[in-house]
């Protein structure tokens, strides 16, 4: 059935989002500024702890990218639902995780298997009616001695970097009770490994937990929803704090100078109905359902909250703010500032002062947006168009996101953020579902479709995070569901659902090179070097569950090829 969406829901984002800061983009990074570039290694999920997904390598660049050739291909033998991870590369060894929680260590120059680890699951670990049935693994974290992975049965497991033998395993929670699991890559911070969990749409109270990287021993836990007696607890009605969601289901960032950990948190649950979680007598939106749909900054040593910024107070659209937090230093109005850029599912990108959470500005990256009419001077959401119980309300973008969890990249050379945007609207019908511990708690359903008049589903954009200016935009027939990589060669890499691995000019958006990899892209490409030779690696293998059901509206009639392989490119040897 073809669904139509009315032009009424379309408007120009330029009329709606007033960015307060006007300054020319700086071309080069500032002296002494935070350096989030990677070198020969790709040591962390976001490249560096600043989550730039930017490689400082420039051997492959705009002038020679057309010469890229396959160097090696590795098939994982785990073909259930694609390969969605970010490979970690350290000292010439690549570590990848697959959807069944296998870890491979590969020789990053040849693809030869050095070792393989298979996680042994607890029996019947999926709670019926919960989010625990989702099957993915988005990557590992690597400490000095261990490769560490979150699992589908909600354990954190560390294996020896040299041998692949299990060193420690700790059950973060019982997946059969909480209905949650771990799909995201952990983050290494000093001698700790920090991890959140999947379950933002469940009747569950999300948290981040830090463990000792060597022993697996508990260090601290930060509950996204404050408990009784804690500041912010009164932003929840009755016992709703127990089931209010907020799971921080992606990977955070770390600023070693400020010693602060930054993490995006999930939406409040039930997703589309807030009547059961809004305190009586609270007519204002500000600070309702803390600290869901927020960016939180935590003291790294203790996990204590330093500051928070709630992007979507009393969320009713399933607009998680769980996505990556990109740390950068930029000149704003003549003043060097430590800022962060953070996009949530609404497609709105917020810029905050990362020392204190001060709101600096925001702009929408989707071309069609109706969930609000604008953002106020202090970041407040104006003209909220909310779902209603028993009625169908059309809003744009969708609970699938103006962008998926696949991540943006930031280049200090261009000063631009590169982001894959999805243009979709949705019909949401809310209900006043009763919470049951660990079960799905969506409080409604939704059906997606293209905004009227649009024929393409997405675009790859270059944004100036300081001015909110879109510098260039390249349309994509299908939504881009792979992360972005950018490099000092002024290149932007990503993959599409049809299997094309693409390289664009970071300055202009011109397509410079493409290679058909044989299966769709849902993972995150990286760059690294061995003995002075640069490699570009991309996971290949479509997340085939995206072809099904309500999500299938993303790609009507399409069944993109699945698979699970790591494909690595390099320049040919010089004669």
């Amino acid at each position, binding site marked *: *059935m073809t669904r139509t969406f009315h032009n009424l829901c379309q408007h120009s984002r330029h009329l709606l989002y007033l960015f307060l800061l006007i300054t020319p983009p700086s071309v080069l990074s500032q002296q002494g500024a935070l350096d989030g570039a990677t070198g020969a290694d790709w040591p962390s999920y976001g490249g560096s702890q600043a989550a730039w997904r930017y490689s400082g390598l420039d051997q492959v660049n705009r002038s020679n990218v057309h010469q890229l050739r396959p160097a090696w291909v590795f098939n994982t033998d785990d073909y259930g639902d694609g390969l969605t991870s970010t490979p970690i590369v350290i000292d010439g060894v690549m570590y990848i995780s697959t959807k069944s929680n296998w870890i491979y260590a590969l020789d990053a120059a040849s693809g030869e298997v050095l070792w393989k680890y298979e996680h042994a699951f607890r029996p*019947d670990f*999926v*709670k*019926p*009616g919960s*989010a625990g*049935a*989702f*099957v993915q693994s988005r990557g590992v974290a690597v400490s000095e001695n261990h490769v560490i992975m979150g699992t589908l049965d909600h354990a954190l497991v560390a294996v020896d970097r040299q041998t692949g*033998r*299990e*060193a*420690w*395993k*700790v*059950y*973060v*929670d*019982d997946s*059969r*009770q*909480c209905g949650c699991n771990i799909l995201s890559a952990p983050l290494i911070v000093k001698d700790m490994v920090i991890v959140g969990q999947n379950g933002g*749409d469940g009747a569950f*109270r999300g948290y981040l937990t830090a463990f000792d990287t060597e*022993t*697996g*021993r*508990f260090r601290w*836990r930060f509950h996204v929803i404050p*408990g009784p007696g804690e500041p912010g607890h009164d932003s929840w009605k009755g016992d709703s704090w*127990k089931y209010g969601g907020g799971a921080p289901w992606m990977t955070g960032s770390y600023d070693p100078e400020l010693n602060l950990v930054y993490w995006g948190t999930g939406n409040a649950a039930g997703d589309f109905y807030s009547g059961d979680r809004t305190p009586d007598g609270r007519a204002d939106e500000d600070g309702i359902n803390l600290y869901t749909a927020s960016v939180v900054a935590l003291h790294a040593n203790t996990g204590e909250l330093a500051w928070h910024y709630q992007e979507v107070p009393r969320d009713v659209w399933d607009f998680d703010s769980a996505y990556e937090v990109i740390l950068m230093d930029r000149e704003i109005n003549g003043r060097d500032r430590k800022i962060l850029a953070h996009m949530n599912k609404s497609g709105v990108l917020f810029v905050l002062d990362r020392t204190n959470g001060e709101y600096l500005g925001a702009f929408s990256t989707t071309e069609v947006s109706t969930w609000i009419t604008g953002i106020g001077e202090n970041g407040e959401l104006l003209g909220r168009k909310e779902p209603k119980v028993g009625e169908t309300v059309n809003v744009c973008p969708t*609970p699938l996101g103006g962008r998926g969890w696949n991540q943006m990249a930031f280049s200090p050379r261009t000063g631009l953020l590169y982001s894959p945007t999805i243009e979709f609207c949705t019909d949401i*019908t809310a*209900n006043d*579902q*009763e919470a*049951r*511990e660990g*079960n*799905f708690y*969506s409080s*409604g*359903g*939704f059906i997606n479709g293209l905004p009227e008049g649009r024929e393409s589903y997405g675009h790859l954009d270059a944004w100036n995070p300081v001015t909110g200016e879109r510098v260039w935009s390249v349309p994509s027939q299908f939504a881009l569901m792979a992360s972005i990589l950018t490099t000092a060669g002024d290149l932007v890499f990503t993959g599409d659902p049809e299997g094309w691995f693409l390289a664009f000019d970071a300055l202009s958006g011109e397509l410079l090179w493409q290679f058909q990899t044989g299966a769709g892209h849902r993972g995150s490409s990286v760059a690294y070097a061995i003995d002075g030779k640069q490699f570009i690696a991309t996971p290949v293998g479509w997340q085939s*569950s995206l072809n*099904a*059901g*309500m*999500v299938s509206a993303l790609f009507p009639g399409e069944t993109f090829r699945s698979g699970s392989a790591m494909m690595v490119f390099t320049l040919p040897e010089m004669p």
Partner: protein
Amino acid sequence: MMKNHMKRTLKSALLVVMGLAVNATLSSAFAASLDDPVSQRGEEIYRTTCSNSFCHGPGGIAASAPRLAARGFDALYIAAVTANGVPDTQMVGFANALSSEDLNAVLTYVAGLNGITNPQFTPDNPLAGLGIEVANPKRIPLAGAEQEGRELFFDAYDKGLARCSTCHEVEGIGIPVAAPILNVPATVRALRNLDTAAVQTVHLGDEDMPAVILAQGISGTLFYDLTVVPPVMRTIPAEVPLSISEGSTWEHVDWIGAYSTAELEKVLAFLRAIRR
């Protein structure tokens, strides 16, 4: 037999055609069979548990999981799949996840979506007489202090990591760090002063740690490290020097301090109740 099979196939085909014809408004085709209180309750359970934007669609239409309405399913098939799930898919069994009343209701509702107007499941035990074996027995109904004790045992909110199920697996929930609870202590005092001879001391490098040894062999030693909550399952390779001595300084009372005496009384009542 062949006749019955053909009859059933024809019935299935007819229902599939009906389903295709009405598509997203399937539920209205069977409105007459879905307006009884049990089916209405079943629709509510279905809507909140099975149809939530991520699995089946509203009214039995397809979503991320297959269509359920007008598929020609018979009552036995509906009950078997709902109870035990479908292997190697995201459809897990709900026999232990729903109360008998709710299971009966949702089975009745899905049966109605398939044109079965009177499926005759037994309300207080809908799987009875169908020959369906459920892997794990359902939680027995409890009340009063026993039920309160159950909630305290698994309390993820007020007790958090300090709850009993961090180390004990009961009724299929919890991490089995400790051996199954075979003997329930007679008193709270006994519970606090539990004999914990199974906890030994691992000497590793400069560190001594209380531990539950799981295995020791030529490849190494596997144990739960009880230094802090939650316990950590550690594997120390044989080439790393390690020794084990009997006994430890670890005491049960130190790990159940989040519970008051009154709460522990209820926990004991719960443990006794499920062994009756």
